[in-house]
């Protein structure tokens, strides 16, 4: 499903993705500053595939998807995926495509908004994440949002000339939930 609009602090907003939001992703995915910790850094990044991905997001029954907006402009995306509605768990992910905006707290606010909705509307019991340990921005955003580290997968993948570790974390949204 497409997530509802969630107004946040400091100009950050989560909003339902649109087809138009997919186009800047094609530009961002071609930038090494954005993808240096990703693999394989190539793909079928065409408008046609972007449309297919958007269609899958719309039809998905086990995920909640958002675009991340900063001061009204789309700068990334986030979501909770592989939701198990019986066990009430899912995996979160987040992507900021505008590397010139790194360090502005956008990801941290997106994590806060996402976690709040995970409890207030989705009533998820637990959300977990996998983040490259060396991805300081994403890691810090999750830590600030209340994710606790529960494991470290050393030597998970080879990126930018080095073996990276993958940090797995979890959060229990009810405990992190603050009514507003």
């Amino acid at each position, binding site marked *: 499903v497409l997530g509802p609009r969630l107004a946040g602090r400091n100009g950050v907003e989560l909003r339902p993705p649109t087809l138009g939001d997919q186009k800047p992703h094609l530009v961002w995915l071609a930038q090494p500053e954005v993808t240096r910790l990703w693999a394989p850094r190539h793909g079928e990044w065409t408008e046609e595939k972007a449309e297919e991905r958007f269609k899958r997001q719309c039809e998905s029954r*086990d995920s909640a998807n958002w675009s991340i907006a900063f001061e009204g402009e789309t700068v990334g995306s986030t979501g909770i995926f592989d939701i198990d509605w019986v066990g009430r768990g899912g995996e979160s992910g987040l992507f900021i495509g505008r590397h010139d905006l790194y360090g502005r707290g956008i990801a941290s606010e997106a994590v806060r908004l996402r976690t709040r909705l995970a409890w207030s509307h989705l009533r998820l019991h637990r959300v977990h994440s996998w983040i490259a340990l060396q991805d300081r921005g994403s890691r810090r955003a999750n830590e600030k949002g209340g994710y606790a580290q529960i494991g470290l997968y050393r*030597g998970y993948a080879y990126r930018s000339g080095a073996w990276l570790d993958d940090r797995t974390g979890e959060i229990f949204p009810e405990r992190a939930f603050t009514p507003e």
Partner: protein
Amino acid sequence: VRRGGQVRAEPAMPATWKERLREAAKEQSAVLWTIETQGGPVGIARVSRHSDVGHCDVQDLAIDPARWGRGYGGDATLAIHRYLFDHLDKRVSAVELPADSERAKRIAERLGSVEFGRGHDACYRDGAYADRLYLRLDRSAWEERWGASEREHPPLPGGIER
């Protein structure tokens, strides 16, 4: 068997399984097997192989409950890891298990897998949550424990070993 994973969003009936098998046959990043003994099926196994990285995940390994206790799960696990290490040249094999799945844990421990993480209250069934274990088997551990006896093929002649 159901305790090992999450409730599926579709009924277990021939029509849906046919569709799932068709999808599995097209899947490029995962390998699905039937576990067979004495000419008949006793279970299934599936491994994701992540073509771009040196690790893989054992996603499913299920044995017909009527055949539990005969070592089929352990034998299938060894056969799968021969393929992963000797043929696909993987560095690490990982698996996630419910922490109260004693049979699965015994198989993983015998194989040489070690815990690198634990998700709390991550698996729900029978009205309660159980933890989820994250385990890994490194190639070096595999070779130390099983390298002498569990090669998929003997070394090739002329000094070529792999």
